[in-house]
């Protein structure tokens, strides 16, 4: 017996064994907890079988999928996912653009410009996103009523039912033009690459009419020349689909045609862009500021111009510290899109809630939501990781 206690004592003095003991107890605790949850969960119906049945509710925004209330709940859910992706991609693009401009503005010597940026960040960052969404919704609803809609001579229809912009659907010639645009983009990218490489090897001596040209400028010029001249050569490449407004025989206003931009979509888009933009502004500003002043000084002492200092020295280094927190903001934006439930823009969260209310089986639907958001976050993270690796690949 004594031997046994002795052996136990020696065994317990090893740190490794103590660690094992602690983990063992944790495992037991967690297992009991999970068992408890399990017993409760058994009582619930944990399948998503109810997703196969008829949805029974309408969705106001459908994109790609032609949804009717007779479709299954799976279809309604996917419509919601598409709406989420739609709003998120557009919002991410514009928020990044706005944030970058405002971030640079904050550091500008133009006092007017930097004050706008300062006020923008301080006011919109400290106001809850929910309030901003509702604000934009109210603004959109304050647009004139449909009977007094602004039409600007039949080109657009602006009312509290949304904004309808002219839609352009390409005719046969138009399809050719679009192909030409794509070719022009590729061509100018290639030209830009070649010219830059040549400059690198042979020094700067590309002269056109005695004016030293930059490789990038040349390619942009090329792009515009090609696209504009071919537009005029081809006749009528686009059929303009103008929005029209008329009263049908019951006296109600009907709008048709064009490309519709509803108040709900507008509200959630504007709010997400403005709100996330403030955080991106601070990220961009902090990143550029944290760059040691010595870098710009060294570049200027060598004679590099302001433009060259920015593009060759400052931005490549700043980008490195921008991308991880930027990714974080994109993930936040994606999750914040769920707030559109408050203004009835049918993205995936709102539709899930409707399904939960209709069918009452919340837990499995919730797992579905969790998995969906995790997948969206994963996609964004992987995409940004690729960009991150390209940016941190040192070189110019």
């Amino acid at each position, binding site marked *: 017996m004594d031997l046994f206690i002795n052996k136990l004592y020696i065994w317990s003095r090893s740190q490794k064994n103590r660690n094992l003991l602690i983990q063992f107890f944790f495992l037991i605790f967690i297992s009991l907890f999970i068992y408890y949850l399990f017993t409760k969960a058994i009582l619930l119906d944990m399948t998503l079988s109810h997703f196969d049945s008829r949805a029974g509710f309408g969705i106001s925004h459908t994109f790609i999928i032609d949804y009717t209330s007779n479709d299954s709940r799976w279809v309604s859910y996917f419509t919601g996912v598409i709406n989420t992706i739609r709003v998120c991609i557009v919002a991410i693009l514009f928020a990044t653009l706005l944030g970058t401009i405002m971030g640079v503005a904050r550091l*500008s010597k133009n006092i*007017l*410009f930097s004050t706008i940026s300062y006020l923008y960040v301080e006011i919109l960052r400290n106001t809850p996103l*929910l*309030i901003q969404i*509702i604000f934009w919704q*109210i603004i959109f609803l304050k647009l004139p009523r449909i009977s007094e809609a602004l039409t600007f001579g039949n080109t657009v229809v602006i009312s509290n039912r949304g904004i309808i912009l002219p839609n352009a659907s390409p005719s046969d010639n138009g399809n050719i033009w679009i192909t030409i645009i794509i070719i022009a983009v590729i061509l100018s990218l290639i030209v830009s690459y070649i010219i830059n490489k040549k400059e690198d090897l042979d020094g700067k001596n590309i002269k056109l009419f005695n004016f030293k040209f930059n490789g990038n400028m040349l390619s942009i010029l090329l792009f515009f020349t090609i696209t504009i001249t071919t537009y005029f050569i081809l006749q009528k490449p686009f059929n303009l689909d103008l929005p029209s407004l008329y009263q049908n025989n019951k006296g109600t206003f009907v709008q048709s045609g064009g490309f519709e931009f509803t108040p709900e979509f507008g509200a959630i888009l504007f709010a997400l862009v403005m709100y996330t933009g403030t955080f991106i502004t601070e990220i961009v500003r902090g990143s550029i500021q944290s760059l040691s002043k010595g870098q710009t000084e060294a570049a200027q002492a060598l004679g590099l111009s302001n433009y060259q200092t920015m593009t060759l020295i400052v931005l490549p280094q700043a980008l490195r510290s921008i991308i991880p927190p930027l990714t974080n903001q994109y993930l936040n934006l994606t999750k914040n899109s769920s707030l559109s439930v408050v203004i009835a823009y049918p993205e995936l969260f709102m539709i899930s809630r409707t399904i939960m209310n209709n069918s009452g089986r919340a837990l499995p639907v*919730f797992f579905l939501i969790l998995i969906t958001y*995790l997948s969206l976050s994963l996609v964004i993270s992987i995409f940004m990781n690729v960009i991150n690796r390209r940016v941190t690949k040192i070189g110019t």
Partner: protein
Amino acid sequence: MNNNNSIKWFFGTFFGSVFNSIVTILSALIFLFLINNIIGFISTSEWEVVTVNRRLLLIGRMPAEHEWRIWSILWITSFLIFSSINSWGSPSKRDLLFISFITLIICLIFTTSSTILYVVISLIICIVSYTVSYFIYKSSYQKYFQNSLKILWILLLPIIFALLLIGDGPSPNLWGGFLLNIILAFIAISFGFPIGIMLALGRASSLPVIKIICIIYIETIRGAPLVAWLLLAWFVLPKFLPTFWGLNEISVVIRAMIVLSAFTSAYTAEVIRGGLQSIPKGQIEAADSLNLNYRTKISLIILPQAIRVVIPALISTFIGVFKDTSLVFILALTDLLQVGRIIPEQDPEFFGKALEALCVVAFLFWTVSISLSNLSKKVEKSLGIGSR
């Protein structure tokens, strides 16, 4: 000579180059547009929707006989805030201006004919505690006072709860308005912060079981939006709570508090994890070589340094939590934002006044957030951390 310089400076800054000039013109246009609209709005708007519904906005549907609780809470909190302002260094003139401005506006919001007495008492408390703490700061009792204030701040939450609940206080379901937002934020931070610390330590631990559990917890909570978790609390949480003690029938407010605390703990854990990572390995090695045990090592060496480094990010997270308390609308709780939305929709007297109500609601949220944000900047400066 000076005049020439200023004119040269003006044109140089604003119209130095073509690009610069375009920017100046655009900015000026934006400014004018915004100011025009804002002034137009303020001059033509009617603020009855706010003044009449003051009570609803601030404390929800709490019955009138319990109002004394709210006033006592307000007085204790004002005392604490105004004493604390002066006990850790004097505020700058700019800060003083800001504080006075905010206090003035809040007094305006609170004052009606029936409450004027209470508001005056509050103002007196503010001024008295400010001046008294100023003198104590200069005297030799500074340390004692600071310590007692610290203890009071820690006890504030239980005090508030006691004041709200003793003597058959109103059930939590009746808590609403701005009060609800503040209480929810307070609870979420008070519980979320310590739990977050433990999670961060667990995640940094070398024991795989603990590490994995913490990672799963943190990543799961951060994977879904807060509204989804709140909805889960509504639908699912009751089913998972034990049936004894009537626990599975706890009120919605308590459920919201649980979810918010869990949510805060996950985000706090991530922030503190960043702080833990930034501690030089030499610190841990020094602590080990001094033979400090785990508890001492963590609480006296590692954690203070880790938290100090990430205070700005922490306060930013807390501000986020406060803003997120507006999301409890999904549980049909009437917080400040919900009240501000519902009144113009349901009360025929105030149709179409949605924007006015929203502005006041936004202002109240903004005030708290920006005060915390300024506090964070001051702390950064005094601790010498953060960006230049």
